[in-house]
């Protein structure tokens, strides 16, 4: 019975739990930072891309998981951030880091506008409106050939001089860690309570004095800004942007990562992004059939363990602690 009590003390919001978790996260981060020295350049590249998806999935989880705003525009915002930065660097000659910042700022503003326009929309209507925005953005980028080179793709200046993916890996690791840590702080703050309240019952949140209009705009803007900045870094890593990368498949991938990993958990999207991206590379030979496999896996997870891999991990930890 004593270990069970201890397991319960690890529940959400307990001071002991946060210390244990922070220590675990720090150890994990240190291990992740050293990982590329043990791996070849291709696996490091795969992990770098996985870290990019960690940022996308985590920021989408803030919007859709914690706040309940199921947006389908996250991939388009990442693409928009990528194009913004690339075009500013190419045409205006600004330094790459400044371009990345501009990509983040522009998508923050776009997200703010989207939040303002979709304030009264929920669920299916919100999904449709954001999906329409995403598709329009992709079509415009694809058609504005003179500016974006359309489907041919835009060659993007690199962020770093290095040819090895290792330094990029460290950049993405730092960005992903900053994102997850930032979200952890945000969600523990008063703002986090407001967002979770909006998800559960917007009307009641409003009735107790939460300015739901302000916070919905804010969360849309913030998660879009993160996606845009991540998309910008990604563009300057891959070196090529194309509207093909803004297809709905990308959004589906992000949703799969979050649902599989565990919505409304901080570690869920991290785990989900890593598992899905690595599995996706491992199964590359099977082509599009991978998406079918992922879709079926997600269906199974949603049916059996709606709380995702994190939920499974927690249940196992609890059982293990109870048995010990």
């Amino acid at each position, binding site marked *: 019975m004593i270990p069970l009590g201890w397991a319960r003390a690890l529940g*959400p919001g307990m001071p002991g739990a946060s210390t244990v978790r922070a220590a675990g996260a720090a150890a994990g981060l240190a291990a992740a930072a050293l990982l590329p020295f043990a791996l070849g350049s291709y696996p490091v590249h795969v992990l770098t891309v996985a870290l990019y998806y960690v940022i996308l999935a985590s920021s989408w989880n803030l919007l859709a998981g914690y706040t309940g705003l199921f947006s389908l525009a996250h991939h388009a915002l990442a693409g928009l951030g990528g194009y913004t930065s690339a075009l500013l660097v190419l045409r205006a000659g600004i330094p790459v880091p400044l371009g990345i910042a501009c990509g983040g700022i522009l998508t923050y503003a776009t997200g703010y506008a989207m939040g303002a326009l979709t304030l009264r929309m929920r669920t299916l209507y919100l999904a449709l409106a954001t999906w329409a925005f995403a598709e329009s953005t992709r079509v415009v980028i694809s058609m504005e050939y003179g500016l974006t080179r359309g489907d041919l793709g835009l060659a993007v200046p690199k962020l770093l001089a290095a040819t090895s993916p290792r330094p990029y890996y460290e950049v993405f690791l730092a960005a992903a860690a900053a994102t997850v840590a930032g979200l952890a702080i945000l969600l523990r703050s008063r703002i986090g309570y*407001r967002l*979770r309240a909006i998800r*559960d019952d917007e009307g*009641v949140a*409003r*009735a*107790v*004095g939460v300015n739901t209009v*302000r916070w919905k705009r804010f969360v849309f803007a913030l998660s879009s800004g993160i996606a845009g900045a991540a998309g910008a870094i990604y563009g300057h890593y891959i070196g090529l942007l194309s509207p093909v990368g803004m297809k709905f498949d990308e959004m589906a991938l992000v949703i799969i990562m979050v649902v599989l990993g565990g919505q409304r958990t901080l570690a869920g999207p991290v785990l989900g992004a890593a598992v899905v991206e690595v599995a996706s590379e491992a199964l590359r030979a099977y082509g599009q059939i991978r998406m079918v496999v992922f879709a079926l896996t997600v269906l199974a997870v949603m049916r059996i363990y709606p709380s995702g891999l994190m939920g499974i991990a927690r249940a196992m930890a609890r059982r293990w602690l109870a048995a010990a």
Partner: protein
Amino acid sequence: MDDPLLILDGLHKSFGGVAAVRGVSTTLARGEIRGLIGPNGSGKTTLLNLVGGQTRPDRGWVVLAGRSLEGQPPDAIAARGVARTFQLPRVFRHMTVLENLLVVVCADHRRAGWVEARRDAEALLRLVHLDGLAHAEARTLSGGQAMLLQLARCLAQRPLVLCLLDEPFAGVHPGIKERMVQAIHETNRAHGVTFLVVSHEMPTLRRLAGRVSVMHNGAWIADGPLDAVARDPRVIEAYLGRPGPGHGPEEGRAPGRAADGHSGQPRDPA
């Protein structure tokens, strides 16, 4: 007690062609506990929505402590000190019982420190006897416990001058009902908070409210001490659909005593 806390002046609200509230004018004194009764569909909830800002009136004004609430969204009205519960209990289902109260402290207009907020929230949970469930997720609560949590959430709001309670006792176990009555009385006495309580439970209202108002078809038809109101022929007609002595909503034969709490008609008066 000189100037009233709440003035409703000619409030009118229609949905499509149906007038839900028509021309309601009344005042609530500071520190008053007022009951509001009336058959189903008589406009009681709409009236609460008009005061809480969930619905905007077509005509008329709501004036709180001398200042109009016209055009104010619910969060601004909450910042003025108005709190409410809902007929079907609405709690933040994926938050713990304690977190449900902490949300209130995290409202935009609040500036209380975290430690103080947590202490106040825990005190409130003790007041409504939910402290044993502080870390349970709110979706695991029973209907009656959710009602209690709603009430505690209401009482956690600051500033707090007016509580609008929408059928807080419907479907609630007598023991829990007792706790609610105590919590309402305690808050009313200690902080001078005004309550407007919609209920079909005459015995409970008798213990709580000095005055009772009656709505029928969107209109305010009677006002006064419960016993006087229950004898009012207009009220009897509203409940029974025909005039007749001795069939009013008297104590012990409360309208809506039906277990679901939704029926506005009294049971067979025999």
